[in-house]
């Protein structure tokens, strides 16, 4: 049978784009598709834990990145109409009013449905993100792993 695997590259760390990625991932998983999400560059911020994680071995620049980038899905900003953080708050309130699942819920549901999360180790190094700072029990790999997964999939998205 033809593969129905879906691969999604989450490059953006924008709240709205990450939302879209997870809605598609959850929908595909509900349709029994195998789903692989590859997080790279700003997209990695969606996988960060809310709490501050001590990372003593970072360089000065890596520490700056760590401090300035959003910590987790609740802190992401919108690609448009961000209004210094007011935009996502308003959007989240409206989503709640419309009973749309929140981004943390979508991430949790994706995990429950067996969606595979892969963090790009090269961009983790560049941005100084350590494994401890990201969600537990995810995979770590590089471009070849992603391409291997993409070869087996019939839909590939770059978000």
């Amino acid at each position, binding site marked *: 049978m033809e593969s129905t695997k879906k691969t999604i590259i989450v490059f953006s760390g924008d709240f709205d784009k990450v939302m879209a990625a997870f809605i598609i991932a*959850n*929908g595909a998983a*509900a*349709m*029994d598709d195998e789903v692989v999400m590859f997080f790279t560059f700003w997209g990695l911020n969606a996988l960060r834990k809310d709490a501050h994680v001590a990372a003593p071995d970072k360089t000065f620049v890596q520490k700056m990145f760590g401090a300035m980038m959003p910590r987790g899905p609740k802190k992401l900003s919108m690609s448009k109409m961000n209004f210094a953080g007011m935009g996502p708050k308003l959007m989240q309130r409206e989503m709640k009013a*419309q*009973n*749309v*699942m929140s981004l943390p819920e979508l991430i949790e549901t994706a995990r429950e449905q067996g969606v595979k999360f892969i963090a790009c180790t090269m961009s983790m190094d560049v941005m100084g993100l350590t494994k401890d700072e990201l969600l537990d029990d995810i995979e770590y790999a590089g471009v070849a792993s992603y391409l291997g997964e993409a070869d087996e999939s019939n839909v590939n998205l770059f978000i």
Partner: protein
Amino acid sequence: MSVTVEELKALTGTTVVDARGTSCPGPILAAKKAVRGVSSGAVMEVLATDSGTLKDLPAWAKKMGHEYLGHYEDSGYLRLFLKMK
């Protein structure tokens, strides 16, 4: 195969999945979650308020191999019917 609204209304013993109030992809996730508890040939009824479900549930059913029977509108929500493969 087309099933009339009267025939849908006459169905009994269906497994009811209440996804009212949830938005995309809520109804599909709810159906997926409930499917394990429904035996082959039985009818699942999904209640939904998100109008996109009218297109999404048949698409999900087609993909999963279930038979979409149809829907009708109740007071302020949709009732959609699937026959499990």
